[in-house]
Structure formats: C-alpha cells, structure tokens
C-alpha cells in the first residue's frame, strides 16, 4: 500500500501543472514553416551561438538555449531563441541587463518589449528573443504573433520578482530595476542584489536590496563589508550603517532579518533616511 502511494505521489509530483516546460515545443505558426533543425546549446557550447556574450548569460545560470528559424513564402524569416535559466530570478536578471528603461513595453509573458526586428520577453525561467528579417511593414504584428504563440507553450508566465514591489515609487526610473547575480558592488562577499535607478531634482542615485538566506548570512555580509572598508565595529547588530567605501563613496545601508537595503550616490542625509524608511515599509508589506 505504501509503495503504491509512493508511486502515485511521484507521478502526481512529476505531473504538477505549471511545472517548467523544459521540453517545450516550438509552435506551429500559420503561414510560416520551420527551416532546418532546431539547434540546442548548453553552457559549454553557448559560445558557438553568441560568442563572447555567452559569459554574461552564464553568470545568470544559463541552462539551455533552443533556436528555431521560421520562413514564409515571401522569404521573410523569424529566429526564435528560447533561453532557459535556472530560476525565474536569473532569467529576469539577464532580461534586465538587456532591456532599456524607455523601451516599447508589451504585455507578453511577465514583461516584454518590441522594436524594429526585435522582440524580447520574459516568462517564468525563460528569456525569449525574437529577431525578424525582411518582414516589412507587418514586422511588429508578426513578432507579436510569434511571441504570443511561443509564450503559450512555455508554461506559467510568472511575474517580475516580487521584491521589486518593495522599491519606493517616488523618483524611481520606471523599468530600471536590475538583478545583479554576482559580486555586487565589485565584492565577492556581497553575492547578488536587486537595484533600481532614481532621480530627484537632478540628483541621480541608486537603491539596492540584498536578500540573504537568513539573518546569519546578512550578518556575515555586513561584517565582511566593514572589514573590507576598515570600518570595524565590535557588535554587528541589525540596524543602520554608514560605510565609507573607497570605491563607491559613502553608502548608507540598513540590515533587518534576511535583508540588507541601501543607497548609493545620495549625499542628502534626510533623503537617505526617508528612502531607507520607505524601503523598510515596502519590505514589510511584501511579507
């Protein structure tokens, strides 16, 4: 009986709807035919497709790329690149590295944008890039149609990382949020971080948040940062820190629980306090 339950449980587990569609199929598109074989690239071979740009994708835990080319009778072509990353956050990370904050955003997947001959979108753990050739005046329509069909086959579209909602809205440059996968601020001990660009009365600054595995990891990061910047403190406790970073100037940051959040390039002390507080409220609401 136990064995049967185990087997059934395993089957159910493997069949969970919304599970990653690792073996997704490229869709059939009316008026278009797939040309040639579908190409597959893995971390070791990604260089063969996107050469040196592969390094950045690998930093975002790239897992697999599938490429299909479609042709129509008018000799137009659309190439569909489907990059699968380890997690939706990593897919967002590489997507955020390449999106422009003033792009023409569209409602495909979790988010996407379209421009001449290019449509890129994010859905779940996938970063999808479409490139069109010889599509003429119908280019955008064609790309949108392709994107919709591909997106349907890629399972749950997911959403942008929920932590982004914690960033204060006031002064934030829309769609400037990024996920930095490694070596935040140029320090290996700071792991990863989410950032967003801000502007107020001509002053540009940046907010960031580091999500640690827990309180201990955050404490460790703070300790190492203080050691690195020779700002030694006897008792590392949750709260506010002002760090004189030799490379980044004065950084204001706050640690509570599993989060460290902070501000770069903002000299005004009252504004710093305001934004640190707003961020804390944003993180509380997120819970």
């Amino acid at each position, binding site marked *: 009986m136990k064995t049967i339950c185990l087997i059934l449980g395993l089957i159910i587990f493997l069949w969970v709807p919304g599970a990653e569609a690792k073996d997704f199929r490229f869709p059939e598109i009316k008026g278009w035919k797939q040309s*040639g074989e579908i*190409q597959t690239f893995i*971390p*070791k*071979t990604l*260089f*063969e*497709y996107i*050469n*040196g*740009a592969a*390094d*950045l994708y*690998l*930093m975002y835990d790239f897992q697999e790329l599938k*490429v299909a080319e479609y042709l129509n009778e008018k000799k137009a072509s659309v190439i569909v690149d489907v990059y699968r990353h380890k997690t939706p956050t990593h897919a967002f990370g590489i997507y955020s*590295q*390449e*999106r*422009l904050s003033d792009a023409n955003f569209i409602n495909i997947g979790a988010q996407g944008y379209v421009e001449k001959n290019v449509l890129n979108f994010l859905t779940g753990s996938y970063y999808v890039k479409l*490139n069109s*050739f*010889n599509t003429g005046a119908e280019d955008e329509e064609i790309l949108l149609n392709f994107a919709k069909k591909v997106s349907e086959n890629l399972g749950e579209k997911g959403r942008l990382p929920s932590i982004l909602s914690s960033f204060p809205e006031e002064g934030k440059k829309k769609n400037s949020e*990024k996920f*930095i996968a*490694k*070596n935040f*601020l*140029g*320090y*290996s001990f700071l792991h990863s971080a989410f950032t967003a660009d801000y502007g107020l009365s001509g002053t540009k600054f940046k907010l960031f948040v580091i999500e640690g595995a827990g309180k201990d990891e955050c404490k460790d990061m703070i300790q190492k940062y203080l050691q690195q910047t020779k700002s030694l403190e006897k008792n590392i406790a949750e709260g506010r820190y002002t760090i004189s970073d030799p*490379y*980044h100037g004065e950084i204001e940051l706050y640690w509570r629980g599993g989060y460290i959040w902070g501000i770069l390039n903002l000299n005004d002390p009252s504004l710093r306090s305001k934004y640190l507080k707003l961020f804390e409220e944003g993180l509380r609401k997120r819970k």
Partner: protein
Amino acid sequence: MRMGGEREERMDKKLIGRRDFMKSTLAGFGGLFFLPQIDLKQEIRVVDAKGKEKKFVYRTLGKTGIKLPAINMGVMLTDNPNLVQVALDSGVVMLDTAQVYQRGQNEGMIGEVLKGRPRDSYVIATKARLPNNQTTGLYTDEATEEAFLKKVDDSLKNLGLDYVDIYYHHNVWKRESALYEPILKALEKIKKAGKARFVGITTHMNEPEVIQAAIDSKLYDVVLTSYNFQQKHYAEVRDAIARAAQAGIGIVGMKAIRGGSGQTPIVKNTAAALKWVLQDPSMHTIITGFTTFEHINIDLAVMENPTLTDDEKRDLQKEVSVSGLYCQGCRQCLEQCPEHLPIPDLMRAYMYTYGYHNLTHAQDLVLSLNLPDRVCEDCTQCPVKCSVGFNVSGKIRDVVRIREVPQEFIA
C-alpha cells in the same frame, strides 16, 4: 602477447617508426607549452596609479603604434561604473566593449565614466556584427555596408565620442566572413572618416583560419582572439598569431581565464593563466573581464610582472592534467613502482586511447613495452603517488586491456 616471425619484424619496423612519431609528438607538446625565457624587449613605464607609483610592462600593438600595458579591461561583464573608474585610475588603458553588450547600455555606461577624462589617456575598442547564418557562419543578404556603417554611429553616440581607437568586425569564424566585401568596404570608410583610428577583427572559433584571413586582407590592423592554455589547438593559434604579428598586426588576447567553446568555465590560477598567454612575444596585450576589485588587483600584479614562476607553471600543468590525460613526464613514479613498470609510457598509451582516440598507436605502444602477463594485479595497494594526482594503477589496468583486442578490430 607476442606475434611471430615476419609479421613481428614488420611490426617492429612499424613500431620503430611510430615510436619516433610518438617521441616527436610528446616533445612537441612539452616544448610548446612553456616557451623559453627570452628578452621580450618590453618597455617598462612608471605610472601613477591611484597616487602610487607603479612600474608596468608595456607592449606595442603592432603597427598601430599604440602602447598598452600587458592587461586591459573587457567591460562586458559589468554594469558597475566604479569598477571601470578604478580600473582606469589603477593603470588600465584600454576598455573593450561592443554594441551588442547589454544592447548598447555597456557603451553608454563607459561613456559616462569617460566624461572629463583626457581623450589621449584611454583607448576605446568597440565592435559590431551583422546578421549571419549561425550554422555556416556566413553572412546573409541583410549584411550590407550601410547596416554596418550605421552601427559605428550608434556606438559613437552611446560612448559620447567622436572616434574610437579600434573598431572591430565582431565574432567571425569563417574566412569568407572575414573577407566579406561589404564589411571590408565599410571598415575602410569608417577609418577614412576618422570614426576609428584602426580596424580589427575578433574571433572565438576557427581562430587560425580567421587570423590568416586577417593577414591576407591587408586591411585589419588588430586581431582580438581567444587564446589560453586549455585550448586543444593552442599551438595552431600560437602559429597564426606569430604570423599576424610578423605582418604588423596588433594582437589582443581574450578568454585567457574564461574558457571558450567547450572549455572549463574558469581556471583556478588566474594570474598563471594570464602569464601563460603573455609569455608569447606575439601577444601584445590581453583583455580580461573582471567583475571585482580583487580581480583588478590580480591583473595589476601581472601588469607589473608577467613572468611565470615555477609554482605557476606547476599549477597550469596540474590544471591541464585535471582532464586526466596529460602525463607531465616527471618520471617520479618510476622509482615508486615495485614492479618497475614503464608508467610514463603507459600513461601515454592512455592519452592515445582516451585523448586522441588513436587505438592503433595505443596498442602498438602497449605491445612494445613487453609487459608481464599480470600487470598491477599482485599489489594490494599502489605505492605510486603521481605528481599531478593520476590514479596510476586504475589507468594502467584500464589501458593494458588493449593487449587483448585483436588488431583487426582496432585498425
């Protein structure tokens, strides 16, 4: 296992011929891996690096005449402007980017960093590519001269500059693409218009073919190529680089610490890996994609002294051996084996089998060693401690089985 009579005599002759071949192959490999120390006639420049006086090794980028420190920065992997600032303030001169990196935002970030810096204090290299067939590497009809010319204007706008120092034809792996007429014409126009001081070509695959095409074109001033100690064909790349340098082409190396196609993502001893590339006198500079301040410090140390130490050589040899194929021929094992087995030869046979997939050579070699019938079977524990960590007895047991395979199955 011994064969009789005439066949044996023929085999001996064959073996002698193959033995000579094997010896020359091994010598060739060992000889090329570390070059003899030669006087590279390098310039040493005293540089003010963040208030400290540093002496950096400088080399000249071929006929361009541009003098560069041994290491410069590939900016592709970072969007951190402070990292780039620190690199420049610390003595890095050349920044390498491309229009495709973060869709122009990488150039834009660099443009912000460069504001206010004297134009002659830095060297900027950027790149552009046009649509091509990803399977054949050949250009499609969309790859026009006009399309390429537009890209340089986009890059100059992103960078906020009137000109770049080097403008590369990006990511080429076919001779036909390197010599693609519309792009060659575009590059000539770009140079004539003063939008780039020099033009170059970059390659990560089929490097020798592309480098030779660059030489033959008589147009390219600079070649940016993958080059590292893990490349299986590093000898061919080395030869191609030498020919290009001889022709006056400036040589910039990349992927020195980050493997290219099919390679290990990153090496363990980065300083050693960089120095291995710089030991080549044809290599004028390397760009590295650092993402931490710690990386910058490693690179700065190499810029001061690019000479490989013995420890670094050993580290590199170990890394190459990590794949488990290349015996370093140190012969320390010979004294350790109580049966006095010819271990280096057996390791070579193992390499032929699993590295080169040349079973004929492997079998010839194993047969020529006149091994006893029982090999490694009487030792309960192997006393041999290999200097690069090979499981010697495991490899020996594996490769001697080839004695039992009929020749007609192998040839």
